[in-house]
């Protein structure tokens, strides 16, 4: 029995290990292919630093917007029954399925200078083409499924009985949400927000169509690669990998450390 167990474990570990190797190998080769000097040059390059700052803050902005609107949606999806619920769930996942360049084109038609919304917002000074707002919109569109899905799952795991008890004891729905549901589901919401933020940082296709400038790091890497070749692009890519990994690991460890208990 034990022997069969061992065999099972070996086979599954080998298969899973192959997949892990598939992730680690390209990352390692980009890191090892970069000398400390070129990495340092990239780190002290003001264009790279500005770009990193822009990328992280735009992704954070997109995540914030998605938390304000997506958490209520996730709660409704987890708790309420209504007609067309399956349709709403499918709708939320649509950005994962659509090619991101197509998403970029679609966003341009809505948020462009003469777009559906853009034509009303542009006179108010809210410009999306080649602007911060355009970067945010691009990231928001492609990464919001992560937040909504993980939040929804998290709310669904909260014992509904607890919410009902709170309501019976005279709590308003607002209070029940704030003091019962959210405190139990917040880790899932946070994990969703982190995933969304990370996905936003890595977005290229949707952003590049709406806002080539100011350049987020993925666009900068692409531009350096196309314009100046591998040697110029690699350190920036390596730096983004390092910074993203460090931030992601730090946030996961510090915010979600009790998750694994």
């Amino acid at each position: 029995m034990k022997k069969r167990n061992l065999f099972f474990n070996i086979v599954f570990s080998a298969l899973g290990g192959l997949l892990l190797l598939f992730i680690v190998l390209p990352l390692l080769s980009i890191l090892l292919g970069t000398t400390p000097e070129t990495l340092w040059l990239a780190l002290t390059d003001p264009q790279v630093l500005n770009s990193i700052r822009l990328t992280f803050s735009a992704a954070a902005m997109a995540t914030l917007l998605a938390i304000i609107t997506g958490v209520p949606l996730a709660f409704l999806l987890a708790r309420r029954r209504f007609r067309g619920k399956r349709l709403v769930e499918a709708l939320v996942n649509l950005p994962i399925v659509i090619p991101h360049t197509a998403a970029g084109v679609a966003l341009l038609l809505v948020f462009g200078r003469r777009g559906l919304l853009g034509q009303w917002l542009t006179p108010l000074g809210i410009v999306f083409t080649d602007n911060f707002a355009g970067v945010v919109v691009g990231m928001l569109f492609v990464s919001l499924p992560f937040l909504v899905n993980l939040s929804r799952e998290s709310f669904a795991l909260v014992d509904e009985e607890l919410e009902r008890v709170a309501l019976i004891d005279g709590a308003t729905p607002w209070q029940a949400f704030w003091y019962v549901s959210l405190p139990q589901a917040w880790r899932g919401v946070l994990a969703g927000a982190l995933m969304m933020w990370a996905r936003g940082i890595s977005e290229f296709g949707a952003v590049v169509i709406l806002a080539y400038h100011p350049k987020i790091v993925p666009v900068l890497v692409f531009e350096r690669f196309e314009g100046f070749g591998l040697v110029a692009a690699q350190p920036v890519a390596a730096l983004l990998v390092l910074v993203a990994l460090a931030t992601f690991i730090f946030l996961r460890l510090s915010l979600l450390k009790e998750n694994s208990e």
Partner: protein
Amino acid sequence: MMKKTITILLLVSLLSVALASCNGGQAGAGNEAMTSVEKTPLSVFAAGSLIIPFADVEKAFEVKHPQIDVQAEYHGSIQVIRHATELHKPIDVVVTADASLIPLLMYESRVPETNEPYADWYIRFASNHLALAYGENSKYADEINAENWAEVIARPDMKIGIADPRFDASGYRALMAFALSEMANNDYGLFAPMFDGQFSFPVTIFRGDELTTITVPEILETKKGSHIVLRGSSVQLIALLQSGDLDYAFEYESVIQQHELNMVSLPDEVNLGEPDFEAEYNQVQVDLDFQRFASVKPKFRGERIGYGVTIPAGAQHTEEAALFIAFLLSDEGRAVMEANHHPLFETFLADGYENLPASLQAITVPLE
């Protein structure tokens, strides 16, 4: 439930494997182990302004040579070359919107393993004219013409699309158009309103006695609120023009006609497409001020637009590549290109004539 799911998943994966193997001729380039019906893939890297006519050339060529499968990819001309010289992709045919880029970037650089140059010949096969494209709602459309275009598009409330001059030939040609327009009109106040204060590092112009030089910085970024919108290649500007995000964009005449956009033709002294104005065109140059990333600082001298084609070192299918070029330059190819508003030259001049495949020597004339 689970059994059902697994069955569906298995079916889907079987289906995708089946689909993938049908498509094997396209996806599995270089896979000789397949059956004899396997087509020879021919990798063609071409300038973005050729997307539409080359789609038809490809179709016509494949009808005539059903054993060859053309796999085309389109980029800005400088990037087309970079895919060969930097990424060492096994490209069979290189086509650029500026033939001079081939000697500049390919003759000089060498394949590391063999130390041979990336190319040692090219054929100039077609020209074009630089023009301004505009859309339905573009501002001042009733006012703009071949005389006042430079003044009109420099107005602050405009959005003007230019391809990045560091990556795309139409980008540095657009810069040249301003210098040429200044000379033609004897009005040296046209460049500044368009370009001054638009970039975080300035694009500068130096008007020498014999040569006007425009210098483009290594980092070219538009400032917030700039009336210039840069994209990696000129064909990327078309979507922005159609969506109304641009008022005008610098494009080639052939591309404007292919997309049925409105066009402001530029005067012959400016449009870089007229053989009689070679001397004027020659008076301007665009320098790329590369400091960090490249050892050479590319310099582009103004000249009549000439599209160039070559077979680079590292090509895997040289015979098929020569067949493709011969077809492009044949009467059939000429007809397809003309139907797409992109006429070819009457005679095809070849640089490095002695290095051409014999079949192509027969249809070209040595460039003196």
